[in-house]
């Protein structure tokens, strides 16, 4: 850990908040993507069954 002197709180707060925001955005994007992919797969199966019936 580098010596941040009297600005340690300032620098660490900036890094923690930024990384938290980035991780939240990445996590949310992945979660929404996965959820949508599963929902579409289910709907496509249902549509195929519906059109065959």
């Amino acid at each position, binding site marked *: 850990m*580098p*010596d*941040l*002197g*009297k*600005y*340690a709180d*300032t*620098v660490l*707060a*900036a*890094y923690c*908040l*930024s990384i938290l*925001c*980035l991780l*939240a*955005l*990445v996590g*949310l*994007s*992945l979660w*929404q*993507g996965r959820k*949508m*992919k599963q*929902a*579409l797969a289910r*709907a*496509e199966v*249902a*549509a195929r069954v*519906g059109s065959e019936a």
Partner: protein
Amino acid sequence: MSLWEYANPKRFMGLSGRVLPVVTILAATSLFVGLIWGFFFTPDDYKQGATVKIIYLHVPAALMAINAWMMMLVASLIWLVRRHHVSALAAKAAGPVGLTFTVIALVTGAIWGQPMWGTWWAWDPRLTSFLILTLFYFGYLAMWQAVENPDTAADLTSVLCLVGSVFALLSRYAVNFWNQGLHQGASLSMDKEEHVADVFYLPLLLCIFGFVLLFLALVLLRTRTEIRARRLSILMAQERVRNA
């Protein structure tokens, strides 16, 4: 092969599926190396002390917040002129990414400004236009949610994007236009007249590269989700018609 062929959702899904893993790995590597280099292996600034390390987050985030809006503007214009759905969905997908970068730039700017300027915030031309750009981002996302018809939403948000681009440009050039306020000019420039010291330059460049790739990866991922959502809504509409 024409670029417009990728406006076809199927072709876009094929290409983006192949490109996305490569871009993601490159983005993660550049950001990791750039931030570690900047945080652990660069010295303090003679004036700003250790707070100079905030530059590796603040500058790339602010740069990409403005560039994200410009990308949304180009995609919106393509939608308005050529009516390609993928371009409208790409603009929509970029909104939350741009907003997150904007928030990071605002928060890190305030945290950096407090010890350096003695204040968290000042109504300086660059900061004020950037704040207005943030409000435009919120408005843009709200409009996509508020309008039910996706084509109408794309039309309205495209016009909003056109208007908001004034503030995206002002955020970048306000310092040159008015030459006043607390915020300094560009940290990097193409003509190399205004640059940070050499010791900070390379890690900063690497972090900017990482943010650009992260933006690209997230927009590709989110556009793929939006295309799937559009396909799902079509299937559900067909299902309703069949059951009626």
